[in-house]
């Protein structure tokens, strides 16, 4: 971990904002907006973390 790895934290606000705005543009009910945005946020973060983990794994194997 070095200073440049802090850059990864900057992904978080972007993903949260994207999830909220996208869900709000699809639904009018607040319950659905929150539910869908949390689900989308977790999905995107999961995909990003999974991809990073695979890349790290490949990188340490090569």
């Amino acid at each position, binding site marked *: 971990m070095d200073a440049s790895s802090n850059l990864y934290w900057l992904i978080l606000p972007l993903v949260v904002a994207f999830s909220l705005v996208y869900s709000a543009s699809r639904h009018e*009910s607040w319950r659905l907006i929150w539910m869908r945005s949390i689900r989308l946020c977790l999905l995107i973060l999961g995909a990003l973390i999974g991809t990073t983990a695979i890349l790290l794994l490949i990188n340490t194997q090569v």
Partner: protein
Amino acid sequence: MSQQPIQLRDPLKAAFLAWLIPGLGHYYQGRKGKAALYAICILSIYFIGFVLGEGKVVYWRWVSPLNLDKFMLHYPGQFFVGLPALPALIQGTIRYFLPNSNFLWGFMAEPSQNVINGMHARLGSKLVDVGTIYTTAAGLLNVLAIYDAYEGPAYVDEPDGDELVETPASAGAKVEGTV
């Protein structure tokens, strides 16, 4: 079942207001919660990016879109944030006609290559790139908000929230809940 019509009022005016300031079109339609959500999310992303790039990641220059070396690919995205990104377009236009202008002390004018190089050296090029991505993403997110102001939400939500019914595009109002 009860129906709650979503009044889109004048959709074109709402879309214009949504472009001008994120959330303003929804406020005009009386969708104040959504207005706050869009304003907070989009403007905070834009201004975080703006501050990360020290205010020098949002600028415009008038060149042919085919000139990919000089064309500002990120500005067409940033443009959709509306008023916060508009000074860059004004500066770009003034600089096109008056290259030595110092309008608004160069606020949001295209920075010189020396300034850009210095910024990359001082902040690190990644942080500058993140600033560009943030401000561009904010504009692209506002496209969704503008479309929502114009067309209403994509789905009509059932009162229990479990099932979704896709609705056709409406002319003036959308109805939440089914008959």
